[in-house]
C-alpha cells in the first residue's frame, strides 16, 4: 500500500461506518467491529506472483478449450466433447439463451477476466499505465461472480459420476487443465492487491479518480 493510504478514511462496505485507514502487517485483514465485514487487507504477495498466476491460468484455459473434456464409450461407440460443444449443441437444439449463458460464463468471461488482468498488470509491472485502465479495473472487480469455471469443474465431475453408471467414461486432458486453471484463477484473485493497484494508478496519473 502506498503512502497515500495513510490518513485516509474508509467507509465500511457492509454498514457505512467510517474508519481511519491504518497500515497492516502483510497477510492480515481489517474488519469492521460493528458488522464484521472486511474493510481492507494487506496482501502477502507481490505483483509478480499475481501476474504469474494470471499467465498460468490463461495458458491452462487455452489448453482446456483445445482438448476433449470427457470421452464416453458405450457398445463400441465412442464420443467425446469439447468445452465449446456443450453450448453449440444447446444452440442447435433450440436453447439459444441457455447456450449463450453457458458460453458466456464458462468460456467468454473467464478469458475476458484473465486477458483484462493481463492488460492491466503487465504494463504496471513495467511502470507503464495502459489506456482505459480505470474502466477495465472496475469491470474486472465485478467479474468474478460471473466467471464460473470453478462451478463448471464441479458440474463436470457430477456429470462424470452420472455417466459412469451407463458406460465407460474417461475424463480428458481438458478437465484437469480446467481444474488447474480455476485454482490458478482463484489464487490470482487472492494474490492481487487491488487497493495497492488503485493507489499506484492514482498517484501516477496525478489525480484521484
Amino acid at each position, binding site marked *: 500500500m502506498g503512502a497515500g493510504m495513510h490518513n485516509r478514511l474508509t467507509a465500511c462496505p*457492509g*454498514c*457505512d*461506518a467510517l474508519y481511519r485507514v491504518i497500515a497492516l502487517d502483510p497477510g492480515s485483514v481489517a474488519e469492521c467491529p*460493528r*458488522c*464484521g*465485514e472486511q474493510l481492507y487487507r494487506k496482501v502477502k504477495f507481490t505483483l509478480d506472483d499475481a501476474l504469474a498466476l494470471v499467465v498460468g491460468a490463461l495458458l491452462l484455459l487455452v489448453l482446456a478449450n483445445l482438448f476433449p*473434456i*470427457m470421452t*464416453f464409450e*458405450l*457398445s463400441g*461407440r465412442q*464420443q*467425446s*466433447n*469439447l468445452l465449446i*460443444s*456443450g*453450448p*453449440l*449443441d*444447446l444452440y442447435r*437444439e433450440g*436453447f439459444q*439463451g*441457455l447456450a449463450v*449463458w*453457458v458460453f458466456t*460464463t*464458462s468460456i467468454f468471461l473467464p478469458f475476458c477476466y484473465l486477458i483484462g488482468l493481463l492488460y492491466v498488470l503487465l504494463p504496471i509491472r513495467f511502470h507503464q499505465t495502459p489506456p482505459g485502465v480505470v474502466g477495465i479495473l472496475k469491470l474486472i472487480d465485478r467479474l468474478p*461472480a*460471473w466467471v*464460473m469455471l470453478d*462451478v*463448471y469443474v*464441479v*458440474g*463436470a*465431475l*457430477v*456429470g462424470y*459420476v*452420472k*455417466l459412469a*453408471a*451407463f458406460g465407460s467414461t474417461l475424463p480428458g486432458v481438458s478437465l484437469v487443465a480446467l481444474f488447474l486453471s480455476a485454482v490458478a484463477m482463484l489464487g490470482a484473485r487472492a494474490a492481487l492487491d487491488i487497493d495497492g493497484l488503485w493507489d499506484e494508478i492514482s498517484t501516477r496519473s496525478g489525480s484521484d479518480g
Partner: protein
Amino acid sequence: MILYVPANLLPILNVVSFGRAEADTIFSGVVELAKSGDWPIAAIVFLASIAIPALKLLGLTFLLVSVQLKWHWRPRDRTKFYGIIEFIGRWSMIDVFVISMLVALIKLEQIATIEPGLAAVCFAGVVIITMLAAMSFDPRHIWDAMEG
C-alpha cells in the same frame, strides 16, 4: 427503490422453476444418484439445485422484509447472512453445466440421447435473476434502520 425490483421478481420465478416439463426432474436426479450409492454427489446436487436456490429466495425475502420493517434484530448476523447468500448463489449453476456437458456427450442416436428440458432454461433464469437480486440488495440498509 432498488429493493422493490427483486422483491417483486422473486416469487414469480420461484413458481416457474418448479414447473419442470421433463421426465427427469432435478429432484429425481438426486434420488437416482442417492439410490446408486453416490451419496456425496447426490448431496452436492441437492445442495446446489434445491437447497441453495430455496435458501436464497427465502433468505433474500427475509432480509428485504426485515429492512422494510426497520427491524433492530441482530444486524451483524443479518449482514453476515447476506454475505453467505451472495457467495453461494453462483453454485446453483452446477446443474446447468451438467446438462450442457451431457447434451454434447451423449449423442448415440439409437442407444441414448440426452435433450435439455425447458426447466433447465427456467432454472438458469432463476439463478441469474437471484444473483442480480442479491447484488442489488445493499446490506447498509440493515444498518440504516439502526441509526434512524
